[in-house]
């Protein structure tokens, strides 16, 4: 059984509909990338899953219909959303931000282990452990956001445009860590990314959206072979 399944999901902000009946499915321990141009509905798809936008259709998480649940409820079910624009707590230190991520957990020992794991994953954070999140660079903030989402011990991570606004080398750095995270923990992921090269480094499946509809989907290596996809998203 797949961990996440979207069946004919539509979503709208106010009057304007953004998704027009999307279906996709994600296996446990799997990772799917969502590609598409600006406004294709990538971010909205993640929001539909985490419950921050109004939807119709069915969204099954672990066999349970979660459509209509608010973001706090989906978070408690194990969906960690790393939103675009990061969303760290600027007033708190790096360590405090990580602990905030573990808010719903009570296994204190394991939390400490996981903090160490995050710091091992992102050594830069180790150096800034006592700094305010506000004092971090964009790349460090993105790392912190990913690490904080991981601290919740989610079953599914929704990663939204993690490379946005970062220097290419920093973005690569972030994605290397995400790949390692996946390899070592088997965390399921849904990755929205403009930069398909980065996305392809993490995911096995890809769904391409165009104006709120799925146009192409398949395994990464299949899509790599498709000219249209190569031209549109991989720069040749």
């Amino acid at each position, binding site marked *: 059984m797949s961990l996440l399944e979207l069946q004919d999901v539509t979503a709208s902000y106010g009057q304007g509909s953004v998704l027009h009946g999307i279906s996709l499915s994600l296996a446990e321990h799997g990772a799917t990338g969502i590609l598409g141009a600006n406004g294709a509905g990538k971010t909205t798809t993640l929001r539909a899953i985490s419950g921050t936008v109004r939807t119709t259709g069915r969204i099954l998480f672990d066999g349970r219909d979660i459509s209509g649940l608010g973001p*706090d409820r989906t*978070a408690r079910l194990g969906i960690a959303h790393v939103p675009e624009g990061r969303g760290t707590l600027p*007033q708190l230190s790096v360590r405090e931000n990580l*602990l905030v*991520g573990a808010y719903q957990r009570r296994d204190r020992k394991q939390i400490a282990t996981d903090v160490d794991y995050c710091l091992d994953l992102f050594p830069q954070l180790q150096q800034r452990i006592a700094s305010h999140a506000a004092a971090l660079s964009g790349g460090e903030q993105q790392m912190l956001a990913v690490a904080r989402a991981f601290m919740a011990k989610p079953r599914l991570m929704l990663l939204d445009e993690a490379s946005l606004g970062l220097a290419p080398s920093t973005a690569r750095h972030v994605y290397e860590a995400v790949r390692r995270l996946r390899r070592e923990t088997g965390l399921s992921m849904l990755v929205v990314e403009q930069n398909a090269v980065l996305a392809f480094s993490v995911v096995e499946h890809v769904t391409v959206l165009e104006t709120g509809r799925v146009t192409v989907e398949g395994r990464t290596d299949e899509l790599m072979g498709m000219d249209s996809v190569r031209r549109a998203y991989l720069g040749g």
Partner: protein
Amino acid sequence: MAGALVRLRAARWSRPALALVVAVLLVLLPLVSSPYVNYQVTTMAVFAVALLGLNVVMGYAGQVSLGQSAFIGIGAYVAGYGTTHGWPLLLTFLLCCLLPGVVGMLVALAAARLRGLALAMVTIALPIVGTPVAKRLSDVTGGSQGLTVSWLDPPSWVALADDQWRYYVVVAIAAVVFLLTRNLVRGRVGRSFAIVRDNEAVALSMGISPYRTKVLAFTLASTIGGASGFLYLAVVQYTSPETLSFGTSINLVVAMVIGGSGSIAGAVLGAVYYVLVPVLAGQLDASRTALLSGAFLLLVLFVLPGGLVSLPRRVQQLLTRRRRRSATPSDDPGDRTGTPVLTSDGRTP
């Protein structure tokens, strides 16, 4: 450098020692000081509790509340009604917490979806509506002439004067309220307050409902406010619609900011300010108290934007800066006020 080291080491054992000294002083104080001093210190305890409640909702949870005086007033009226009708003390106290808590929760259920100015406006409504309501319900409240009680006299087996007995009762209850609240804001609840205060989107992504968190913060604040109303009546032996008035709320907000928002010690310091500054201003020039208090307020906010509670850090900062004049300022954000609550619990997970 060596001196600093000694001080650092001293700090480790001096904290419980200082707490002990303060506790002993608080116990001995009423025995040697005049009824006036006892009254003033007891009053500080009352307002420290009120400020603590305000701190929960404003300092820790970051939600504007300009209605704290209403809960003090309700608590005081409940205490007054209970006293005049001969209710048991414990029952009265519990109702003093419960009723304002329920009122606060009901208002919060409606208001917590709002933010910023809109929320502030709703909380203003409480004292604005409460004052005329208190005047009109004169059977319960004594109307605008207020409610005078003769209450909480020392029991016959205690060889204490009124002021001493009331001091002990009030300070003991205040200490318990402080202890409970301290544990609360240092724990999970406090952490959820901080997250909601700093970033509601993050709160949601952590599975925390900002709405419920805010309702909880308001309910706690009004419950604690009600407890301080009980204490208020115990000290002043009188309450009137003036207690609920909007002006009191504003003064409480000022005192909270002066003391240091989001800080337990700040609530105590705010109460010391609330009670002491008008007295000191009155001794300088009784016909210019507002002016002198205002000047002091501005002075504190300019020199110590984090409130009185940040004074030691500020002094240390200035000393350090002087010591290494040419050195670059440290990376450690020293002007950080007492806001985050994660420090003590969070550092040793």
